[in-house]
C-alpha cells in the first residue's frame, strides 16, 4: 500500500542548542548544531531506520520531528501539514496521530501511576473512551502487547524492563496513531528481550497499519525491522538506501566502517572478520568547533584534499541510493 504522498516528509531540518559556559564574569555563549540539514521521507506503512553512533543527532532528530524540541529551521510535513508552523493547541491535537516510544523504559513511565492509568491517559485526554469502555480498551491494549490484562492496577516498578517497554508501547498505541517514532526502543533491554520487543513491534505494525521512524545505534537491530535505512554522522545524513542495499553495497566509508564493526554470530566468520577489521581511529570532531569540508575526513581512511574543504552533497549515485561522499564523484 504505497501511497503517492509520503506520510512524513522532513525537509532541511536544523536544530541548534545554545550553550553557555565559562565562569561568572566571562560567560561565553556558543551554538551547538546538533542536527544540520537533515531531509528524509517515510511512506505510509514503511519503516525508516535511522542509524548512527552516540551523539550524532539521532534522538534530537526524533524529538524535533515530533516537535518535542522546536527545530531551528526546516519543515516537518506530516500528512501534508507542516508541524513546525502549527499553533500550540492545534499541534497538541495533532499529536493524536504521531506517538513516541522512548529509550528508557524505567524513566519514561510515571512511577506514581498505575499501568492502567498510564495506558488510559491518552485515551481520556482526547476523549476517545471512558468508563467501562475505557477499561476494556486498556485491557485489550495490554493483551495486544503481550501483558496480562489483570496487571492494570499494578505500578511500573513491579515490572521488568521488557514488560515496562511493552507498557510504553501500549501507551503509544492507545490512540491508534499513524506514525510511531521509536527512539532506541530496545537498547536499554537485555539482548534476549530485544528480539521479543522487535517482533512485537513488527506484529503491531501489521495489525495497526503503522509507519515507524526507528532509531538505533545497532545495525543488526535496524536491519531486522527497516525498509529503508538512513545513516547519520555529525548531525547529517551521509547515506540512505533500501535496507538490503545498505548491507549488500555500502558506499560511504562510514557506513562500511559501521558494518565492519558489527560482530557476526558465527565463530568462524567472526574470526576472519576480526583479522581484516580495522577499527575507526580518532574521535568525532567537536560539535562546538565544526570542521570545514566533510565532517568524516578526520577519521576517513580515504581522505583526499577536497574532503578537507568542500562538504560533499547527498547525491543519488545509483537509483534509490544516496550518498554524501567525494569518492563517488570520480
Amino acid at each position: 500500500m504505497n501511497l503517492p504522498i509520503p506520510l512524513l516528509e522532513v525537509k532541511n531540518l536544523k536544530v541548534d542548542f545554545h550553550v553557555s559556559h565559562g565562569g561568572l564574569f566571562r560567560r561565553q555563549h556558543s551554538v551547538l548544531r546538533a542536527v544540520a540539514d537533515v531531509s528524509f521521507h517515510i511512506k505510509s506503512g514503511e519503516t525508516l531506520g535511522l542509524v548512527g553512533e552516540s551523539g550524532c543527532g539521532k534522538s534530537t532528530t526524533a524529538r524535533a520531528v515530533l516537535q518535542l524540541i522546536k527545530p531551528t529551521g526546516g519543515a516537518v510535513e506530516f500528512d501534508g501539514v507542516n508541524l513546525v508552523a502549527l499553533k500550540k493547541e492545534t499541534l497538541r491535537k495533532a499529536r493524536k496521530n504521531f506517538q513516541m516510544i522512548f529509550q528508557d523504559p524505567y524513566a519514561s513511565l510515571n512511577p506514581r501511576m498505575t499501568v492502567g492509568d498510564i495506558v488510559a491517559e491518552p485515551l481520556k485526554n482526547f476523549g476517545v473512551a471512558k468508563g467501562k469502555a475505557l477499561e476494556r480498551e486498556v485491557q485489550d491494549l495490554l493483551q495486544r502487547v503481550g501483558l496480562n490484562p489483570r496487571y492494570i492496577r499494578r505500578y511500573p516498578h513491579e515490572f521488568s524492563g521488557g514488560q515496562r517497554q511493552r507498557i510504553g508501547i501500549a501507551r503509544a498505541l492507545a490512540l491508534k496513531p499513524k506514525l510511531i517514532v521509536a527512539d532506541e526502543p530496545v537498547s536499554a533491554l537485555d539482548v534476549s528481550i530485544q528480539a521479543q520487543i522487535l517482533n512485537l513491534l513488527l506484529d503491531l505494525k501489521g495489525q495497526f497499519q503503522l509507519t515507524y521512524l526507528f532509531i538505533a545505534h545497532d545495525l543488526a537491530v535496524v536491519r531486522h525491522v527497516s525498509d529503508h535505512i538512513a545513516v547519520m554522522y555529525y548531525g547529517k545524513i551521509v547515506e540512505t538506501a533500501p535496507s538490503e542495499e545498505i548491507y549488500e553495497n555500502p558506499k560511504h566509508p562510514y557506513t562500511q566502517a559501521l558494518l565492519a564493526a558489527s560482530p557476526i554470530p558465527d565463530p568462524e566468520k567472526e574470526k576472519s572478520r576480526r583479522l581484516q577489521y580495522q577499527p575507526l581511529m580518532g574521535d568525532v570532531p567537536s560539535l562546538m568547533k565544526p570542521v570545514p569540508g566533510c565532517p568524516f575526513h578526520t577519521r576517513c581512511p580515504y581522505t583526499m584534499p577536497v574532503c578537507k574543504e568542500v562538504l560533499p552533497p547527498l547525491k543519488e549515485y545509483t537509483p534509490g541510493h544516496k550518498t554524501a561522499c567525494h569518492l563517488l564523484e570520480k
Partner: protein
Amino acid sequence: MLRFLLQRLVGVLLVLWVIITLSFFLMRCAPGGPFDLEKPLQPDIRINIEKKYHLNEPLPAQYFRYVTDIILHGDLGPSYRYSDRSVNDFIREGLPYTMQLGFFALMVALTIGLSMGLAAALRHNTRWDYLAMAFAILGVSIPDFVLGPLLQLLFGIHLKWFPIAGWEGFRYFILPSVTLGSYYAASIARLTRGGMLEVTLQDYIRTARAKGLSEPVVVLRHMIRGGIIPVITYLGPATAFLLSGSLVVEKIFQIPGLGRHFVNSALNRDYTVALGMVIFFSALILVFNLAVDLLYLVVDPRMRKK
C-alpha cells in the same frame, strides 16, 4: 498497612516514654528548684510545700507517680509556681490561641510558599524565578522579631489596615500569621522549586508532553506529585513547630498562647510545666512525622510494598 500503622504507633509511644524519662531526670539535675526564691522560705513552710507536692519522696517514687498520673489520668501535674493551676489548665487555655495562630501561619506558608515555588520552577531562570528566590532569601533571613514590629509599624500604625495586637477576630490574625509563617513560606518555596525542577527533567514528563497532554495537565497530574515530596518531608516538623507556638510572635502581638510557658517554666524550674511542654511538643512532632510517613504512601506507590 494496619500492621505498619500499629508498629509505628508502638514506636511513637516508646520514643515518647524515653523523652519523658530523660527530661524528667534532666530537669531534676539542673541546680535550683521551684521554691528557691530570692528570699528563702522558712524551713517548716518549705517542708510543708514539698510534702504537698511529694517532693520529699525519693526521686524514683516521684518519677513513678508522675508517669502513672499521665498514663491513668492524662494528668501532667500541678504547677509548682502558680498554685491552684495545673499544667493541663495552661495547655487548655493557651492551646486554642496557639493552634489558631499556627494554623493560619501554616496556611500563609503553604499558599505563598507553594505558589512562589511553582512560579519559580515553571518560569525557571527568568525574572520571576529570581524575584521569588530573592523573596525566599529575605524570608529565611529576616528574624521574626524584626519582621513583626516592621509589619506593625507599616500596616498597623501608618496604614491602619490591621490592629497591632490582640486576638479578637480575623483582622487580628493576619499580621502575626504572616510574621510567623514567612520563614516557613520561604523554605517551602525553595523546596518546591527544587523538587519541581528535578521532576521537570524526568523522561516521563517528556512522555506526557508527547502524548499530547496540555501543559496544565502535565504540571498538575505528572509534575506536582513527584515535585512536592521534599515539601511533605518538611511539613511534618514544620507543622509541629508552628502549632507549638512561638514565644516571640505571641509576645510581640500580645497573644495569650502557649509560647511563654516554654520559657518561663524552664527559668522558674517549674518542673511539671516544663516537662508538660516538652511532652506536648514531642508528641506533636512524633504525630506529624507519622502523618508525613503515611502521606508518602499516598503520594509514592513504590513505598507501599515491603
